């Protein structure tokens, strides 16, 4: 990018760290936004499952010599929509059908990558390799992150309504099926964009753990969502710094920082009053 390395302080004083920072912040800010809704819909592990399926896309990309990010994106989106369709029809006994998809995806990825004649292997996509992202990767990752953030900003009210009560949302004329499909597709987009950062096997951590952390302290859904994105960004920045300082695997370091933040939030959270105020008290402030 023009003028790199920019005059940033350590540890972001080199071009490769600055590219990693931009890509990491884009993913750290967008993945938890999707996670907020997945967690509330009890679909925390959907990102993990779609990550497995995306491996088939990576394998195909390596075999055909095209960008693994784009082939992974296509495969992940198709699989996510198929899963959502099965889920909405009640056709899956959950676990088993999901297992077929997930292990099928990994197995196909390994076989396809094995047929590839290039030297590239699956490893950077499984566990991430954010310190080797290219300028082209960064543009793609930022574009996908912007797509995720814009989609959530536009649909967050309706998504919350669907999370609260699907039937009531249908009665209110909210397109529940389309929104569920959108959320599944955005989960797949997140997987593709985060592949180079944490790797497909750890991406679900960056969707779910910041939400768990933010939920400890936040008083509203809005604060939970924004707080999760902040936690995601902080984890990326600290994780990258730690990776540079101690020569750690960056993807794993970022996820471990997220876990540490969750632990810290849980311990530091003041004892919240859990008892609901009396009906009588609320009556005093209303017309009754």
């Amino acid at each position, binding site marked *: 990018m023009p003028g790199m390395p920019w005059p940033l302080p350590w540890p972001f004083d080199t071009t490769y760290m600055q590219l990693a920072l931009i890509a990491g912040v884009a993913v750290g800010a967008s993945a938890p936004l999707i996670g907020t809704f997945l967690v*509330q819909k009890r679909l925390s592990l959907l990102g993990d499952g779609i990550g497995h399926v995306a491996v088939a896309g990576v394998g195909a990309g390596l075999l055909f010599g095209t960008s693994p990010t784009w082939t992974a994106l296509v495969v992940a989106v198709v699989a996510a929509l198929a899963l959502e369709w099965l889920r909405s029809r009640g056709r899956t006994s959950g676990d088993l059908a999901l297992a077929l998809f997930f292990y099928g995806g990994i197995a196909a990825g390994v076989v396809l990558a094995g047929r590839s004649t290039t030297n590239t292997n699956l490893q950077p996509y499984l566990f991430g390799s954010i310190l080797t992202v290219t300028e082209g990767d960064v543009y793609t990752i930022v574009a996908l992150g912007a797509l995720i953030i814009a989609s959530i900003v*536009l*649909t967050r*009210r*309706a998504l*919350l*309504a669907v*999370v*609260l*009560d699907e*039937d*009531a949302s*249908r*009665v*209110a*004329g*909210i*397109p529940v099926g389309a929104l569920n499909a959108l959320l599944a597709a955005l989960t797949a987009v997140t997987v593709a964009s985060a592949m180079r950062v944490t790797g497909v096997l750890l991406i679900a951590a960056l969707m779910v753990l910041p939400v768990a952390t933010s*939920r400890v302290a*936040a*008083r*509203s*859904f*809005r*604060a*939970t969502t924004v707080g999760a994105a902040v936690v995601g960004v902080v984890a990326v920045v600290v994780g990258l710094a730690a990776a540079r300082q101690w020569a750690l695997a960056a993807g794993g370091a970022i996820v471990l920082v997220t876990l540490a933040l969750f632990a810290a939030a849980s311990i530091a959270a003041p004892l919240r009053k*859990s*008892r*609901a*105020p009396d*009906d*009588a*008290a*609320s*009556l*005093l*402030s*209303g*017309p*009754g």
Partner: protein
Amino acid sequence: MRTPAADPVLSAHGVSFAFGAHRVLDDVGMEISPGEFTALVGPNGAGKSTLLRIVLGLLAPQKGRVELFGSPPRRLPARWRLGYVPQRPRLAPDLPATVEEVVAAGRLAKQGWWRRARPADRDAVAHALESVALDGLRAQRVAELSGGQQQRVLIAKALVSEPELLILDEPIAGVDAQAQRLFRDSLVHLLREHGAAVLLVSHELGAVADDLDRVVVLRRRVLFDGKPVDLAATGVSLGVHRDDLPRWLEELSENGGS
């Protein structure tokens, strides 16, 4: 304001439904006029929930026809005219949403689900919270409220689109007497201030029995449709076995006989 001959807000004709060989609804018909407070009662398994899902457009009738404001439920153009309060608070115990956020979600039918809230929308949320006496708890996490308070949050969520027909499914099941009185006050407020029609589906009506305009007794078929006093007068001669009658119905018929 309203003419007696106004078009019904809800009409059902010849509605039948069966789950496999098990017939749940058999040629059911009813109409609700604007501003009318109607209770749909019947013992458990009488088909109340099935009829409700058909009326809401969540289930298609196998025979017969339902119209809301003159349109089939699934093709109702102005969805906000219908308010729905589900049976039990289905709010996850770990949901980090506030009372205000939950109620605002009910406004989307009127505001447009993709639109930002305008001042009128925020006013409507504040007003709905006031009318169920929860304005003091607007920033509270909804999961921290009592069962009765959560029920009133869901009523406010249904009221906030200013519906012309409010349908409530078993709203007072399992809440204490004080919560029932608050619930009754909220409903009466809605009837008087907004002139909305209310359809209350329940098997216990103690708190609102005196306010009802009409009672429809359902057990697969419509067994009675009329004023509460007339029901009290005819009482058990409706062909309903006494054991099958909802508790409040027994009380009504006993009072009518004494």
